[in-house]
C-alpha cells in the first residue's frame, strides 16, 4: 500500500511536469481551437437542414432536372463528413508528432 502511494506521487509529478511544459500548453490550445471549430461546424451543418427544409422554401430551388438544393444538401453530408474526417486525420498526425517530441524531451 505504501509502495502504491509513493508510486502514485511520482506519477503526479511526472504528469504535472508534462502538463506545465510550454509545448504541451501550445498543443492543448491548438487542439482546443481545432476540435471546437470543426465540431461547431458539423453540428451546425447537421442541425440547419431540418429547420431550412421544414420551415423555409430556400432549398426548393431546382438545380438540375428534378434535383433540388435540398437533395444536394442531404447528399452533401457524405462528402462533407468524409472531408472533415480526412482533415482530422491529417491534423492528428501533426499532433502525434508534437506529443512524440514532448515525450522524448521528458525522456519517457
Amino acid at each position: 500500500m505504501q509502495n502504491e502511494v509513493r508510486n502514485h506521487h511520482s506519477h503526479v509529478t511526472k504528469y504535472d511536469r508534462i502538463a506545465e511544459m510550454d509545448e504541451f500548453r501550445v498543443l492543448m490550445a491548438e487542439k482546443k481551437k481545432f476540435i471546437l471549430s470543426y465540431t461547431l461546424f458539423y453540428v451546425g451543418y447537421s442541425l440547419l437542414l431540418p429547420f431550412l427544409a421544414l420551415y423555409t422554401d430556400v432549398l426548393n430551388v431546382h438545380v438540375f432536372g428534378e434535383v433540388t438544393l435540398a437533395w444536394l444538401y442531404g447528399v452533401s453530408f457524405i462528402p462533407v463528413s468524409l472531408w472533415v474526417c480526412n482533415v482530422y486525420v491529417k491534423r492528428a498526425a501533426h499532433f502525434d508528432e508534437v506529443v512524440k517530441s514532448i515525450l522524448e524531451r521528458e525522456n519517457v
Partner: protein
Amino acid sequence: MDMQVIILFSIITIGTLLITYFASKKTKTAGSFYTAGGGLTARQNGLALAGDFMSASTFLGLIGAFALSGFDGFFLMYPALLSFLVILFLVAEPLRNLGKYTLGDMITARYRFKQVRAVTAINTIVISIFYMLGQLVAAGALFKLLLGIPFHISIIIVGIGMLTFVLFGGMTATSWVQIIKAILLVGGTFILFIMVMWQFNFNFIGMFAEMKTATPVGADFLNPGVKYLSGLDAASLVLGLLLGAAGLPHILVRFLTVPNAQVARKSVVWVMWIMGCFHFMVIFLGFGAAKLVGMPTIIEANPAGNMAAPLLAQLVGGDLMFAFISAVSFATILAVVAGIVVTGAAAFSHDLYNEIFKNGQATEKQQMTMVRLASIVITAVSIVLSLSLQSFNVAFLASLAFTLAASSNLPVILFTVFWRKFNKTGAVFGMLVGLLGTLTLVALSPNVWNPVPGAALLTGEAIFPLSSPGIVSIPLGFLACYIGTKIGAKKAALEEDRYTEILVKSHTGSDVKGVIKH
C-alpha cells in the same frame, strides 16, 4: 424458395459456429472475453464498427424510410454518419487512452469512487437492454414477415443463437461475426444496387423525374415534409442520433478492442467510408423500392416500411436474392445483439462484480463464470421484455436508446475529459438525471399517450409534445452535470484531483504508460 432460405441460413449459422470454435480457443481470460485482448487492426475494427452500427433498423429501416417518406429519410440517415465525427473528434482517442475494458474504467480513471463506477455500469446495462429490445422486436417482426415464423419463436431463436457464440467466443467471436456481417451487408447492398440501377439504365438524375409520379404522394415525394411536419421534432431526432452514438456503450467498447489511439482513429476512417458508400446506395434503393415494388405493397407488408428492401430484392433478383437479403438480415441482427450483450455483461462482471463486490480481487475463473452468467441473464431479461413489446415501433425503441446515451453518458464522458472543475457529484448526478429525465419525458410523450384509444400505450393528450425528447433531454443532461458539480464543489476541493493526470494521459496516449513504470 423455402429450401434456398434454409440453406443460406444454415450456411450463416455454421459459419458463425466455426468462428466461435476458433475464437473460443483464444478466449481464455476475462480480458479477451471483454475486448478481444485489445489486438484488433484498424480495418478489422472499422468493419466491426460498421457491423455493430448497421443494425436491422439501419438496413431495412432506412431503405423503407426513403421508399415511404422520400426526402424525409435523410433525417434518419445522415446523423448516423456524422455521429462518427463526434466520436472521432471528442471521444475515441481519450477513451482508448484512459479505458481498459468498460466505460466505467474510463470515468473512474478520474474519479476512483465505487458509486461512480456503479452508476456508469448500471447506466450501461440499462441503455444496452433498451437498444437490444429494439433489435429483438425487429427480429421477431422480420422473421414473421420473411419466413412466417411466429414472433415469440423468432425472438427465442435469435436469443439462443446469439448466446451460443457469445458464451464461448466472447468479444473475439462477436467481432468476427460483425466483420463478416458487415462485408455481407455492404456486398449484398451493392449487388442489389447494381440490379436496381440496371433497371433505370444508371440514370441517377432521371430517377428523380420518375419519382414525381411513382407514388401516391406525387411530386411531394421529393419535398421535405412527407413524414415530419415540425422542424423542431426533426432537429430533435437529428440531435439525438448525432450525439447518441458517442454515448452508446456497445459502440464505445469497440475502441477498447484496438491497441492505441492511432488505430482507434483509423478504424473511424474505415467505418465512415463504408457507411458513406452504403448511405449513397440506400437513397436509390429507397427510390427503386417505391417505384418498382410500389408504396401500397410495401405498406401492406409492413406499415413501417421494413419490408421494402426484401421485396425489392425479390422483384429484381428473384427468390435467391430474397433469400440472400433475408439471411444477411438474420446475420445483422445476430451480430448487433451479440455486441450489446458482451458490453452489458462486461459492465456487470468487470465493474459491478469484480471492481465493486470483490475489490478488484476476483480470479479469472470467477470473472469468466460471472460474465457468462450475466450474458444469460441480460438475454433472458431482454427476451421476456421484448415479448411484451411486440406492438411497439422498432425505430422508436432504437432512437430511445440513442437519446438515453446522448443525455446520460455523453455529457459525463465529455466533462470528464475536457472540464477541469467537473467532479464526482457532477458525474453521478448528471448520469442519473440524464437517464431518468429522458425516461420521464418519453413516458409523457406522444409515443406513450394518444387521444385515440388503442393507438398508443395510454389514452390521453401527451404532456410533452415531441416524440424525440433529445432536444430537451440532452441539454438537461449537461445542465445536471453542471449543477451537480456546483453542489459537490466544496467536498471535491478536499479530494485529490486527477485532472492533470488524465489530461496528459488522454492526449499523449499509451506511450505514457512508460511514466507509470518510472
